[in-house]
C-alpha cells in the first residue's frame, strides 16, 4: 500500500455518502463517437463535483476484442500486480495486456499503476467450475478485489471500459485521452463525496462485467441492501451506494433474468398505494416483485444511469429527489442531471423531457433492443 493510503481511510473502510452529477449519451444507430461530448457535458455541471472523483464508461470502444473481457486494474505497487497477474494467468487466457495510455495532467496526481488486460476464461477451469462465463468472471473479479491487497479491478466488461480517477471529471477525461476512444454510448460522473478520501477505485462509474453505474444521490437503504445482496456471493468492499446498486442490478438482471423494467420496479418499487391502483395482472406482478425482493428496495434520493452492452437505462428514485433530464436528437438520446449539460452538446434536441420518478428511461441500439427511448415521461413541449 502506498503512502497516500496508509495515512487515510481507504474507500471501503468507511462508508462515503456522496452527491454528484451524471450524464449519458447513446447513439442508437451504433455509430461510434469520441468521449469528448461526455467531457463537455459533465463540465457544465462542474459545481456538482468537488474534484474528488470523476469517471467515464464507454461502450463499443474495443470492437477488435469484443469477445474478450477487458479488465482495467489499478495497482498500488508491483507486488499487487505480480499477485494479480499470477491469479489471472491461473484462471484466464490473456490475449493482450498493456498499460492504459494516460496523459500527465496537473490536476490528476497520485495515480496508481493502471493496466488493461483482454482475457477469456481458461476452458478447463470454466468447465470444472460449472459456472457460465459471466459468473466465472464475476467471481474472479470479486476475489481479486476482496483478497489481493493493493489491486482493484475497476472494469470487467466486454467491448466496454471504465476510466476513472480522483479529480474533476473533465480532467479525468483528458488524463485518459478519451478523445482517442470511440464508442456508441458514454456515461460520465462527477463526484462530490462528503467524506474525505477520494480514492481512484471509489470514483464512478462502478462496474461489474459489462454493467456500469453512475449515480447521483445517497441512499438510505444502503445496509439493508448490502446485507441482503451479500447473501448471494457479492462482497461490498467499497461501501458505496453505487457498488451495491450495481450488484443488485447484476443479480436481478443477469442472474434472476428480470427485465430492466422489472428491475426498476424492484429497486424503485412503486408505493403500495400506487400498486393498488393498477389492474390485477400488473398489481400482482408488482406486488410479487416488491415482496420477493423487499430488501432490494432502494430508498433515499438517487438518479442513476446504467450502462450495459447495447443500451443505457436512466432511473430516478420514486420520489424523484434528484434531478434528471432526457432528450432526443435523431439517433441520439441524452440523459443528464441538468438540462444545460445536454444543451451544451446538443442545443436543439428534437424533444426534451423530465423522466418520472421510479420509471426507467431505456435507450438501446436498434440492433439489440427496441431502439426507442421508452418509459414514462413528463414531456416538455414547445421545443
Amino acid at each position: 500500500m502506498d503512502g497516500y493510503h496508509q495515512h487515510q481511510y481507504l474507500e471501503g473502510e468507511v462508508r462515503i455518502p456522496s452527491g454528484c452529477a451524471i450524464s449519458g449519451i447513446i447513439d442508437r444507430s451504433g455509430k461510434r463517437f469520441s468521449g469528448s461530448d461526455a467531457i463537455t457535458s459533465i463540465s457544465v455541471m462542474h459545481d456538482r463535483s468537488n474534484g474528488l472523483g470523476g469517471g467515464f464508461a464507454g461502450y463499443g470502444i474495443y470492437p477488435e476484442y469484443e469477445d474478450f473481457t477487458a479488465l482495467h486494474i489499478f495497482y498500488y505497487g508491483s507486488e499487487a500486480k505480480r499477485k494479480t497477474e499470477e491469479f489471472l494467468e491461473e484462471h484466464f487466457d490473456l490475449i493482450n495486456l498493456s498499460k492504459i495510455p494516460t496523459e500527465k495532467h496537473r490536476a490528476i496526481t497520485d495515480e496508481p499503476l493502471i493496466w488493461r488486460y483482454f482475457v477469456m476464461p481458461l476452458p478447463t477451469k470454466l468447465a470444472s467450475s460449472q459456472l457460465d462465463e459471466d459468473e466465472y468472471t464475476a467471481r474472479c473479479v470479486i476475489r481479486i478485489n476482496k483478497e489481493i491487497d493493493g489491486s482493484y479491478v475497476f472494469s470487467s466488461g466486454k467491448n466496454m471500459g471504465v476510466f476513472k480517477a480522483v479529480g474533476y471529471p473533465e480532467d479525468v477525461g483528458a488524463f485518459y485521452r478519451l478523445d482517442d476512444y470511440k464508442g456508441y454510448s458514454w456515461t460520465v460522473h462527477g463526484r462530490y463525496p462528503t467524506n474525505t478520501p477520494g480514492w481512484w477505485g471509489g470514483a464512478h462509474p462502478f462496474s461489474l462485467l459489462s454493467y456500469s453505474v453512475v449515480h447521483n444521490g445517497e441512499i438510505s437503504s444502503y445496509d439493508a441492501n448490502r446485507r441482503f445482496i451479500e447473501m448471494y456471493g457479492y462482497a461490498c468492499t467499497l461501501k458505496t451506494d453505487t457498488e451495491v446498486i450495481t450488484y443488485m442490478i447484476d443479480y436481478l438482471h443477469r442472474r434472476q433474468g428480470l427485465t430492466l423494467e422489472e428491475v426498476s420496479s424492484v429497486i424503485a418499487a412503486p408505493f403500495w398505494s400506487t400498486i393498488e391502483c393498477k389492474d390485477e395482472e400488473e398489481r400482482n406482478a408488482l406486488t410479487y416483485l416488491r415482496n420477493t425482493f423487499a430488501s432490494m428496495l432502494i430508498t433515499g434520493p438517487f438518479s442513476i444511469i446504467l450502462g450495459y452492452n447495447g443500451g443505457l437505462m436512466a432511473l430516478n428514485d420514486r420520489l424523484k429527489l434528484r434531478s434528471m433530464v432526457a432528450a432526443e436528437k435523431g439517433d441520439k438520446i441524452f440523459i443528464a442531471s441538468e438540462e444545460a449539460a445536454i444543451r451544451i452538446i446538443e442545443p436543439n434536441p428534437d424533444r426534451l423531457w423530465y423522466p418520472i420518478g421510479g420509471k426507467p428511461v431505456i435507450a438501446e441500439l436498434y440492433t439489440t433492443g427496441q431502439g426507442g427511448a421508452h418509459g414514462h415521461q413528463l414531456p416538455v413541449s414547445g421545443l
Partner: protein
Amino acid sequence: MAINYLYPDFEVQRNESRCITCRVCERQCANLVHHYDAETGRMTSDESLCVNCHRCVSLCPTRALKIVKTDHVFKENANWRGEVIQDIYRQAETGGVLLASMGTPKPYPVYWDKMLINASQVTNPSIDPLREPMETTTFLGKKSTTIRRDEQGKLITDTTPQLKLAIPIMFSAMSYGSISYNAHKSLALAAEQLGTFYNTGEGGLHEDFYRHGKNTIVQVASGRFGVHPGYLNAGAAIEIKMGQGAKPGIGGHLPGSKIGQDISKTRMIPLHSDAISPAPHHDIYSIEDLRQLVYALKEATNYTKPVIVKVAAVHNISAIASGIARSGADIIAIDGFRGGTGAAPARIRDNVGIPIELALASVDERLRAEGIRNQVSLVVGGSIRSSADVIKAIALGADAIYIATSALIALGCHLCRTCHSGKCNWGIATQNPELVKRLNPEIGSEHLVNLLTAWNHEIKEMMGGMGINSIEALKGNRLMLRGIGLCDAELRILGISHAGA
C-alpha cells in the same frame, strides 16, 4: 396462627383530608384490601392483601390514595437482599416452587437502550411522514428464490402464502384462559382495525372469534388444546409454539379451577380439569420432527397458511433458527428472555434464556451467512416497549415485532405481576366474570389501536428522519444503529459500530 416472617411489601396511603368515602376502592378491590368502617365513617385498609395493582388508585376520584413501598427493611446486605430472604421464608414455609408472572424484573442489560438511531443531515433529505408517502406495510412469509415465467414470458406470481401487515407489529400469543374473553376480544378487534394479527396462544379459539379469523394466528402448542381442522383453517396463519421466552424448556398448566364452561369448550377439555401443556411436543424430539409437524399442518390446510415456528431465545438460537428455516417454516418467531407470561417458575423466568436483541442479531446474521434469510421471515418479541425498540429490532434484521406486555399495559395492566392469582383487578388475567367485565373491549381495542397508531407515527417519523420511506429499507439496515456503552463482544454480536465510529 404461626409466626409470619413476611411483612407486606406495600403500604396503602389514604389522604384522609381528600377521601370522600365513595367506597369505590372497596368495591373495586378483588383482593379485599379496603373496608368501610360504619362506626367511624372512614375507610380502612389491610395492606397485607395489596398487590399494588393501582386499581383503587386509578379509580379514586379525589386522588386520595397512593401505594408506597414499605420502608420496613432487613438489615442492609448487598448479597442477602430482602427479596432473597423473603423468597427463602416463602419456600421454607410452603415447600413450593416460586411462581411469578409477567417478564423478569431483574436488572439485566436492555440492549435496546444501548443503541442509538441515525438521522439524515445534508447529504440525504429526511422525509416528513405526514405529507410524503411513508410505508410500513410488511409481508411475512417465504419469498421465491428464483423467478419463474409462463410461456408468454409473464411472471408467475403465486408466492407461498404470506401475511400482510399494515404495520410491522403483531400481538403475540396469549391464550384464552390466561387472559380473559374481553382481553381477547380487544386484541381481535384491534388487530382487525389495525390490519395486523393477534394470536390465540395455545388455548384454542373461542367460537365468537372465528369471525376475526383473517386477523388471527392460531397456535398449536404441546397441549394441542382446541386444535382441530376447523381451528387450523380459521386463522390466517398457524404458529407452532416450541417455547416461550419467559420459560424456555418449561411447559405450563392452567389449573382446573380456571377451566369454566367457556374455556372448557374452547380448549375442548372437561370442565374443571387441569389443562397441561407438556414442556416439549411429544412428536418433536428433533429438528426433522419439526419439519414433519410443519408439513402436517400445511397438508391439513392445503398449503394456504404460512406456518410460524415460535422458539425461545436460548444460547444456540442461531443454529436452531437455521434449522427451522430449513424445516419448511415460513416465519420464525423468537421470544426473548424478558418476555412475559401468565405464570412461570420465578427461577426459570429470571435465569433462563438470552436477550432478544442478541438473539435477533445473531440469527439474522447466521441466516444471511447461509444465504437463506429471504426464505423465512423473522418476528421477534420479548419486551418490546416502544416504537424505538421496534425500529431498532427491524434495523437489526427483524421483519416484524410481536408485542404482548405492551398490549396488556395498554389494556390497563399495571404490571403488578400477580396474574397467577386469577384476581386481576383490571379484568385481563382473570376468568372471574365480575372482573372480566371491567375490561370493555370497546375501550380496550381503542387503546390498542391508539397505541399502535401512535407507534406507527413515531416509526414513520424516525424512518423519515433516516430518509427511509419504506420499512423494508430499514430491515437489517444496521448502519442506522450505533452502540453506546457496549463492549466489543456486544458490538460484534449486534453487528453495529460504536457511536462516534
